Structure formats: structure tokens, C-alpha cells
């Protein structure tokens, strides 16, 4: 297990500590509701990880989160904070749904990859806007990706309600995808999960073994030194945003082609935003994204059971996830504060 040995103890301690604190604070909140926190967590984790069917559901929930987590993580490695995974994911979901119902009569070996490609392409198209603005105009990617989220969500709503709408239906949604575009289950597990694992491994390999990965990593760690060493900062910004957007697009496509079977605006809510938590919890490590997504996917999948069996509002899961995000990022804040006290870097900002 050479891979696991490379995961340093230190890089594990902060996420684990964050999880612990988040669950402790969560248990206080559950107790305040008058429920038993131990029972609630027991139900949550038994449901998510305690049975084969439960675990299969967890993996299905984790699949889009692995991909949206990667979409955020790859950009973090380049020093970019891609808040726009949600918009990129929705763009990819809609595009793959369109490809799924518009092409009729294709064999599945062609139709599935084609629909996935549509998802990747339209996801990266959204991210490209932010990448170009950052590279050539210095507009901060946090601002642009947030704004693009709103634009894409509204645009997708419009498209699904008018030109791509399923005929003779009151609901805002596209037609169902062709059977040939549906991603099947294998051994009771969604094939999409294995696609996500393969993409994780590919990213790990890219970052570790290739010159492209080294360029991205160098710019992420020291932009001036990278520029000085001859790496094109613009190209790295644009290519990592493209990669991130494509991965988020595939996340939307896999969800559409294996779970939802069509595009309906409400279906993909929050998948891209959970990707931010996944990426930060994984400390932007492409392999760390897998367990982080499984944990969060499991909690999402079991939230309703927890309400049913332990009488805890499912929003508690949202709260715990928010707490995880908060505590994972808190050490970064601590470090910034410490540096400020030392008087070395008195000014730091959002830009560049």
C-alpha cells in the first residue's frame, strides 16, 4: 500500500480533528432538540455503512460528490478556489440529458461516452469563462464562479422549461434519456462509481507523474517562482479551470445518466456545493476525495432515516456538514492569524 503510506499523518490529523469537533458540536445540537445524539449517529451510520444495500446507496450518493470534489480540488491545487462546481455540474447534467434523449438508435457503447463527453464539454465551457477572466483580466475566480452559478442555474431552468421541455407535461423537465444512454449497475453497484474512482486515480497520476501536474502544482504553490521558471500562469489557470469544469460536468452527467434519467432542475441541488466540503476535507488530494465523498454521501443518504428512526430533523446533517467545512478551514484561518502576529505578511488579499 505505497499509496497510503504517502498520505502523511499530519495531513490526516486536521480533517479527522475537524470531523470529531463537528460531530461533537452536532451532538449538542441534537441533544438540544431533545433527541439522543448517540442513537441518532448510530442510526445514521448503520443505515449508511451497516448493510450491503445501505452501502450501495451510499456509494451511489458519493459518486457525484467524488467528481464535484475533484472539480474543486484540482483548482485548489492550482491556487484557484472554484466555487462554481454547482453551475458547471448543472450545465453538464443538462447537456448530457439532451444528448441522452436526442440521439436515438445509438449502441450504448457509443451513446454513454458521447453523453458523458457532452457533460464534460459543457461543464468546462462554464468554467472557461471564469478561467479566461482570471487569466487575462485578473477578475477573481470566486466572484466569477459564484455569478456563473446563478447564470447557469437560471439558464438551465429556462431551457428545461421551454425549448428542451418534455412535451405535454406540466413539469419543468426534459424528456427521459434513451435506454442506450443509461449507465447500468454492475454487481449491484452503479458503474458511475467506478468511473469516478478511475477519474480520481487519473488525477492522482496526473498530479504526481506528469509535467502538466507539476506545472499546476508549482503555480499553486508559488506563482512568481513558476512564472520565473517559464511556466505560463495563464495557461495553467485556464487549463485547471477547464479540467475542473469538465470533471464537474461529468459529475452532472453521471448523476443524470445513472440516477435521475433526465434533467430536472431540483435533482442536482447542492451536489456541486458539497464538492467544496469534500475537496477541503480531502485537503485537495485526488485520492482523499474518495473517502471524504463516501462519508458525506453516506450522511446525505441516511439523513431521512435518521429523522424517521431517531426523531432528528434531517437538517442536522446539513449543519454537521457545515460545521465540518468550518473546522476544516479553521486551521487555515489560524495560520493566517499567526502570520499576522509575526508581522511578516501584514497584507494579504483576495486578488492574486
Amino acid at each position, binding site marked *: 500500500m505505497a499509496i497510503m503510506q504517502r498520505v502523511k499523518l499530519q495531513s490526516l490529523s486536521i480533517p479527522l480533528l475537524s470531523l470529531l469537533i463537528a460531530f461533537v458540536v452536532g451532538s449538542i445540537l441534537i441533544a438540544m432538540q431533545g433527541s439522543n445524539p448517540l442513537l441518532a449517529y448510530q442510526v445514521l451510520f448503520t443505515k449508511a455503512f451497516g448493510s450491503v444495500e445501505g452501502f450501495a446507496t451510499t456509494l451511489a450518493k458519493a459518486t457525484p460528490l467524488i467528481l464535484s470534489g475533484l472539480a474543486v480540488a484540482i483548482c485548489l491545487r492550482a491556487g484557484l478556489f472554484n466555487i462554481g462546481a454547482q453551475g458547471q455540474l448543472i450545465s453538464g447534467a443538462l447537456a448530457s440529458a439532451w444528448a441522452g434523449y436526442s440521439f436515438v438508435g445509438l449502441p450504448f457503447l457509443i451513446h454513454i461516452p458521447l453523453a458523458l463527453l457532452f457533460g464534460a464539454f459543457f461543464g468546462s465551457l462554464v468554467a472557461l469563462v471564469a478561467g479566461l477572466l482570471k487569466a487575462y483580466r485578473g477578475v477573481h475566480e470566486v466572484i466569477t464562479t459564484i455569478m456563473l452559478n446563478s447564470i447557469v442555474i437560471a439558464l438551465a431552468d429556462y431551457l428545461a422549461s421551454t425549448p428542451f421541455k418534455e412535451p405535454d407535461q406540466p413539469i419543468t423537465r426534459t424528456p427521459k434519456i434513451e435506454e442506450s444512454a443509461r449507465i447500468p449497475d454492475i454487481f449491484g453497484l452503479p458503474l458511475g462509481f467506478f468511473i469516478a474512482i478511475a477519474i480520481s486515480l487519473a488525477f492522482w497520476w496526473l498530479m504526481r507523474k506528469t*509535467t502538466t501536474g507539476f*506545472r499546476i502544482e508549482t503555480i499553486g504553490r508559488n506563482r512568481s*517562482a513558476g512564472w520565473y521558471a*517559464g511556466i505560463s500562469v495563464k495557461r495553467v489557470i485556464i487549463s485547471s479551470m477547464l479540467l475542473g469544469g469538465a470533471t464537474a460536468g461529468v459529475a452532472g452527467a453521471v448523476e443524470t445518466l445513472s440516477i435521475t434519467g433526465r434533467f430536472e432542475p431540483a435533482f442536482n441541488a447542492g451536489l456541486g456545493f458539497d464538492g467544496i466540503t469534500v475537496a477541503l476535507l480531502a485537503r485537495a488530494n485526488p485520492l482523499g476525495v474518495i473517502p471524504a465523498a463516501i462519508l458525506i454521501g453516506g450522511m446525505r443518504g441516511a439523513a431521512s432515516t435518521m429523522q424517521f428512526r431517531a426523531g432528528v430533523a434531517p437538517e442536522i446533517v446539513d449543519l454537521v456538514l457545515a460545521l465540518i467545512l468550518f473546522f476544516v478551514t479553521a486551521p487555515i484561518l489560524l495560520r493566517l492569524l499567526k502570520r499576522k*502576529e*509575526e508581522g511578516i505578511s*501584514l497584507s494579504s488579499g483576495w486578488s492574486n
Partner: protein
Amino acid sequence: MTNLLDVERLSKRFGSVLANQEISLSVKPGEIVALLGENGAGKSTLVKAVIGLVKPDSGTIRVKGKELPYGDTAGAIARGIGMVHQHFQLVPVMSVTENLILGDEPTKFGLIQMQKARRETAELSKRYGLAIDPDAIIEDLPVGMAQRVEILKALRRDVSLLILDEPTAVLTPQETDELLEVLRNLASKGVGILFITHKLREVMAIADRVVVLRNGKLVGVTSPKESSESQLAQMMVGREVVLHVEKGPGNPTGAALEVRELEVLDDRRLEAVRGISLQVNAGEILGIAGVEGNGQRELVEAICGMRNRRKGKVLVAGKEVPNLKPHEVHAAGVAHIPEDRERHGLVATYSISDNLVLNRFDQEPYAKGWIRDLDAVARNGDELVRRYDIRTPNASAPASSLSGGNKQKTVVARELSQNLPVVVASQPTRGVDVGSEILSLSDRVAVLYGGKIVATFDSKLANRDEIGRLMAGSEGSRS
């Protein structure tokens, strides 16, 4: 009369760097004290300690005889210390008056009394002879005027000691003269002034006393009356340890680097390099001597592709190298040891091995096509660590774990191991424990002043005093 400020034996360490080492200084009312030193000498750390932005490790700070606790910014302000930062702390979209009252607005029933504030601003500017329009918007003002607002902001709080951090760095020569006049005027009204600078002309023109720092240590306290610019220049740049370098005479064989009529602008878009021509022969070391701010940084950056050339040519081994990016100049045969190694030279969180291939990671043998050869990178790392005596347990340790000198060795190892025809080293010994001397290292020394080469010597025939005098801008006996 009690001193406004007494600093005694103040020390401050940042990691392995001693920024201030037992520094003492004092300022009396009405006195102008210049704190002179090159960048990195510890001037800013010292004044930041005085106003509480940096906590010293030891030493005492007394204001008007009373001790000031470490890190007590509010206390420092309350006792009448004001600071004008190098980077203005102003709100660009607000007016002069609004900026002046920010944080201490005159109010009545919770409403800001704008008219009263405007009157106060006008009075203040009249009292100290700092003419300014109270309604002007900051972003419309020239830099010199914005600086006046900063000074007025400090004066409004009844400042008795005004600290200015490199106040002239952003000013044009005319604005500088105006500022010096303002400072003289303030001093005549009893305000004590401590100003940081590395410009000798200003020191000579205005200071009552000069405190010179070098490498975090106090090297001397003098006054313009007792010393000359060249003595000050020597105090600033001289080294304590004059290490004799064993080096045979060069064996020049034709021009390796030629610079012709080079003109370069600095960050303020002022002319920093004014028509420099020089030639470095193969096998020869040309030293460039100059007090900071006389164009040597811009000269080096223009040669190495980090700054655009406005005019002139650079030739490497007889072939012209156009305005390019740093790595393209490198590929044309110029190795560069950058001045700011933390910023440009190294990626601190990368291993030493990765840093040693930073500018050639995508070339054979470190990459085959798209795939990096990590074994080749590691082998190169091990070898260079051994060959250049980089002190580290192993080459896979992060560069941040190295001491300053060993970080520098890492950059040097990367740049020199490729046997390029030209090596440009920018302040190569800064912060490195071995002191070295431009005279003993170089075959020839060119002295830069005001963006021009004022003299070139054969280093065997040159003497320190004369170089010092030339660096300070005085006429040399030959050129």
C-alpha cells in the same frame, strides 16, 4: 529635556534571521533622525517594534521617559507616535477631510459634523504649512499630495514623534524636495522625526543625526556634519567580515555578455537605467557596485527578462537576445541567481530535488514527453546536494527546511550546474553568513549611480574609498 523616544538594546528574530540585534537609538523633540540602511537591514522591523506592530524579543522602548509595553499599538498612538507607512493607508474614493477624520469623527447627536471637520482640516493644513484642498478625492491626488494627507492624519492626533517609512520611495524628485521642506518645518515646531531611507542625498540634506543599520546591527551613529556621503555609503554596504576569496585572475576570451545603450523604466515608470553599455568577457567577473535605488536592480531584471527594456540591446555570446520571458533568456544562455530567492528562486513547499529542476522539469532526462522521470529528478537532487554542499538530511526534504545560505546554494546549484555562458547574480550574498567583497571577487568593477555607469575599474587598482565616493555620486578621479 526628555527624549521623545529611547530604544535600548532591542532585538528581534524571525526564524533564523536576526532582524534587529541589540539596537539602541533615541529621538529628541525637534530632531530629525535618519535611519539609514539597505533593504533587509532591519529598519522597518525596528520602527514596527516601536509602534507595536512587531513584538520584540528583548530590549526596552521608552516614550517620553515612560516604558511602552511590547506590541501596544494603541499605547504608542496615545502617547503621540504617528507613522506614515510606505503604502498609504487611505480610502481612495473618499475626500481628504473624510480620510482625516476616519476612526475619530467629530459628531453631534451621532451625526458627523462635516463642516467642523472641513474647518479643522483647513486649519491643520495652514498650521503646518501643508497646503491641500480639504474636498479633494484621494484617488485624484498625485502621490506626493496623498502622502501629505497621511502626514496630516498623523498630525491631527497631536503627534510628537512622526515616523516615516521610506517616504520618498514613491515620490518624484520635486515631491521629495517638498517633503523635506515639510519635515524641516515640522521639526522647527518641535515634532521629532524618525525617517527610514536608503537615499544618501536626503540624509545629507535634512538629518540632524544618522543611525546606520546593516544586517540587523547598528553600525554607527553620526551626523551629516561629521561624515560624507561616501562614508555613509560604506557604512551601509560594507561588510564586517572581509573574506579573502582565493581566486586566480580571469582569463578573458571574448565577450560573453554585451549590453548596449540599455534604457529601462522602474516600477514608477521613471527612468532607472539611463543608457548603460557594458561588456563581460568569458572567464571574467564584472562586479556592479552601487547604493540601492541607482538602477542596478532594473539593470539585472532587464538583462534577465523580468522587466521590459525600453531601448538598447543585450547580446549573449554575440547573439542578440530580444525582450523575452525569464526562461527564454535562460535558454539563450543566461543563468540568473535572482535577488528575491524566496519569491522567484524557490517553491518553499517543494522538495530540494524538485527545486533543483524547477526550470527544466519538462526536459530530458527529467521528463520523457509528458511523463516526469522522478528517479532522474531524485538522482540529480542527490548529486547537486553533494556537489554544492547543500546542508540537508536528504534531497527530498522541503526547501523551506533549509537555512538562508543553503536555500541560496540550492538556487546557485540549479543555475550553475547547466554551464551556461553567462551568470547574473543579484545580491548573491544577501542574508548569507559568509561576507564577501565585491573587490576581491570581481576582475572589474563598474560603479552605478543615478542609472548610469560612472566609472569602471580594474579591481586590482581600485580602492574602496574611491568606489564609495563614486557610489555616493561624487566625481571620481577617473572614469
